[in-house]
């Protein structure tokens, strides 16, 4: 160790710190610009009245009976749909993990199919089935009226079902066999075991699923647009006010109202999740499910009915896309795939481009964010963590509105990309940032911290460790993060509805517009294309991972 070597050493030390600081800045700046600034803009807008700053806007709208009715409608729909979804999904997940029913692999795929389609596809399918000209009314002439409350609830149940199922499935997948054996040895019946062991051990998953579903439903926009009829909810009202009447002030107030339940849900969930320990310990024994013909048959029937409902609604959309004119002329035809109205097939390509951009941006920012935040724990990274999961509490409509308010302004530097595909891709990344970030964090955490230390002790710097050790180990997770952002960007409607321009129209928006202009069959065809792209992507990457011998990564989130 010579004296001359010391300055070089200090330079090397600083270099690693510098790299970490650079990474932190690279992820912090966009988080602030694309999450905090839009939210601040909405907050500001909601308080600015013609008479100055104050609660005037809130006072004015809350004095309107019609507005209060819309708020009430939103809560009624959300609470009903959440209750139904949770019960259905819990039963489904329970059957999948705690019984020996056959064809589990098939059912597992069917359960998540609604994730492949924009939210309004469920409503579209329901209309084909139960609408005024739907299959039921035409054949049985029952006069079923699906527009309104029940339509929204039913389609949102279908839409949010896979989200709830995935969360509850994760909660029910792990179980400590010792608790179940003890309960059985003590003479508990199946029902009693369910109430005393199963439910308590999954209560955190249950809570999380409830909040996620509630947030999805109250902020869902596609289904109420298609099937809501005269039944207005907050999400459609914000669209009508902003896009239809340019009433940004009322939009901002509704945005703030939509933020509240979602924020409460996320905060409570985080608080609860923090206490989630010791359900499973190292000594836990995995639960071996035993065969029980009668129970398995019962569960099979239940799961089959739920899957049939999902398939029926989606299947009708697919079928309607291939017939001359549903429901009048059912002869098969490909004419709806010519896409000869509006922008033709271009929105589909735009969607694919935007989704690819979102996937790339998401991978870079989310993975480096997770890595830096996990590796360096200090006040700054804790703030970055907060910013990273903050979007979970921000409904897409609100984020999109925030983007208009903040960036549709030539004096803002972001205005340069405003109106283009990039801003839509960025909006999608930050809309789904929390989930993608948590996905990445889980995988970064899975690499033992001692790999970093071992690498450092052997003389490697930050970048070499990242390049040679971290990335080669977590690449399957990187792919799953990319696929996640791609999938969500393909189907999302809520945030981007405010950001599209005629030249950047997206596929999901096309479906909405086609439906709105009475071209249900073409809307169905467009939906099928979206679903096909998503499914194809999943199949390609799933096969790729399998080919590389990766088995334990799930691409569907």
């Amino acid at each position, binding site marked *: 160790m010579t004296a001359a070597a010391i300055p070089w050493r200090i330079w090397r030390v600083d270099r690693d710190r510098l790299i970490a600081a650079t990474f932190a800045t690279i992820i912090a700046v966009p988080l602030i610009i694309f999450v905090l600034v839009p939210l601040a803009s909405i907050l500001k807008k909601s308080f600015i009245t013609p008479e100055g700053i104050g609660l005037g806007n809130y006072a004015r709208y809350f004095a309107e009976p019609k507005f209060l009715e819309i708020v009430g409608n939103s809560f009624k729909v959300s609470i009903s749909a959440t209750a139904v979804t949770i019960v259905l999904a819990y039963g489904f997940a329970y059957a999948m993990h705690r019984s020996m029913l056959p064809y589990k692999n098939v059912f597992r795929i069917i359960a998540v199919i609604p994730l492949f389609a924009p939210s309004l596809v469920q409503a579209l399918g329901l209309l084909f089935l139960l609408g005024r000209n739907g299959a039921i009314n035409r054949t049985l002439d029952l006069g079923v009226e699906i527009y309104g409350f029940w339509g929204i609830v039913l389609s949102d149940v279908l839409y949010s079902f896979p989200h709830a199922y995935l969360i509850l499935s994760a909660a029910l997948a792990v179980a400590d066999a010792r608790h179940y054996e003890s309960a059985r040895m003590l003479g508990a019946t199946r029902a009693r075991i369910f109430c005393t062991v199963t439910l308590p051990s999954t209560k955190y998953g249950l809570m999380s699923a409830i909040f996620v579903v509630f947030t999805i439903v109250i902020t869902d926009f596609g289904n109420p647009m298609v099937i809501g009829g005269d039944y207005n909810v907050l999400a459609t009202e914000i669209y009508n006010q902003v896009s239809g009447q340019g009433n940004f002030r009322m939009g901002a107030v509704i945005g703030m109202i939509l933020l509240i339940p979602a924020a409460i849900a996320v905060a409570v969930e985080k608080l609860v999740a923090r206490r989630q320990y010791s359900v499973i310990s190292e000594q836990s024994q995995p639960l071996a499910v035993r065969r029980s013909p009668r129970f398995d048959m019962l569960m099979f029937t239940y799961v089959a009915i739920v899957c049939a409902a999902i398939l029926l609604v989606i299947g009708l959309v697919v079928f309607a896309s291939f017939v001359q004119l549903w429901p009048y002329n059912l002869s098969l035809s490909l004419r709806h795939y010519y896409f000869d109205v509006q922008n033709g097939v271009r929105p589909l390509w735009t969607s694919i481009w935007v989704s690819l951009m979102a996937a790339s941006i998401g991978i870079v920012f989310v993975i480096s964010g997770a890595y830096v935040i996990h590796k360096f724990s200090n006040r700054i990274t804790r703030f970055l963590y907060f910013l990273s999961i903050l979007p979970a509490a921000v409904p897409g409509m609100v984020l999109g509105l925030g983007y208009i308010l903040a960036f549709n302004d030539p004096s803002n530097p972001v205005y340069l990309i405003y109106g283009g595909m990039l801003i839509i891709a960025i909006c999608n990344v930050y809309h789904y940032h929390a989930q993608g970030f948590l996905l990445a964090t889980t995988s970064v955490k899975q690499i033992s911290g001692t790999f970093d230390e071992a690498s*450092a002790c052997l003389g*490697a710097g930050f970048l070499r460790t990242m390049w040679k050790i971290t990335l080669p180990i977590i690449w399957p997770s990187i792919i799953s993060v990319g696929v996640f952002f791609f999938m969500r960007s393909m189907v999302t409607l809520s945030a981007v509805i405010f950001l599209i321009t005629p030249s950047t129209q997206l596929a999901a928006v096309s479906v909405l517009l086609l439906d709105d202009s009475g071209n249900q069959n073409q809307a169905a065809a467009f939906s099928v294309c979206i679903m096909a792209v998503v499914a194809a992507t999943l199949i390609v990457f799933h096969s790729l991972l399998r080919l590389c011998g990766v088995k334990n990564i799930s691409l569907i989130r």
Partner: protein
Amino acid sequence: MFLNLRNITKRFGSVTAVQNVNLEINEAEFVCFLGPSGCGKTTLLRNIAGLETLDEGEVLLRGESLAGVPARLRNFGVVFQSYSLFPNMTVAKNVAYGLECHRWKRDAIEQRVHEMLTLVHLNDQARKYPHQLSGGQQQRVAVARALAPQPAVLLLDEPLSALDAKVREDLRAEMRDLQTTLGITTIMVTHDQDEAMEMADRIVVMNRGVIEQVGRAAELYNHPANRFVAEFIGRMNVLHLAAGADGKPSLAGTTLHAENISTDGPWVVGVRPEHIQLVRDCGDSANLITGTIERGVFLGNVTRITLNLDGQKLVVEVQGELQIPPRDVPLTVRIPPDAVKPLGRAEI
């Protein structure tokens, strides 16, 4: 002095993990940090490795301070308890990794990898991935990887504790031989006193962040500095002596003669179970103590008898098998005066 630890203190929040540790380590010496979990031994090792920044004090290598030198520039070989071999690289690539970081030439790397794997008898496994090896093999690769860049010091963090008992014993001897052959200064952290006694030149006994005693195994065993060391290294009867009628220390009513014991009590002394003798015929020799038998067990090489002496327990170990008398039968033993080690005053 080769490696010098000066006034090292490390805190985690309000907890002081290592407190004012001073230690000098010679070149080519094998030193063990021994202590119960949470005693600060691993923290101390991580501070030496540069994986933690110390709050006070400094580490000196050949007289030069390592303050501000991060782990990757210290060139200390570190072997972790969890092996932490890179799962995405073959055995050979793992061993080569440190050499690549130090910018060795390609053929020099190849030669060194071969040399290191020969040293740990794993040359035939070079192309395998870590998960294809047994725990013992993985740990040997980890040692080869740590030694490859010719580190100044080898740091071992409980390297054997994740292994099966049999493998562990084989590896102890193998690693000690390797260390002697290479003459590399080595620090190993362990909570296993057998491991420390078998492998180390010197043992550093730690407790609650401070060093209790430093010495060779025999020194620690025969002359423990205090009660903690006495009880941690081997078995030790800890006896509270009261002052008898004549003011001399007494145990169960009998005056106990002992060497090196201070004049005023009350006292706490330690007696190794194997130093206590069974007395067949009661002559008039001193230090004869009678207690009642509480329990006797045969353990193969020794028979262990637990006596009750007016409420205090006394464990006696006798070589070989012994007819164990039934419970509550009185038994007289002799405690040789030179077997009584003072462990400080009773109030401690």
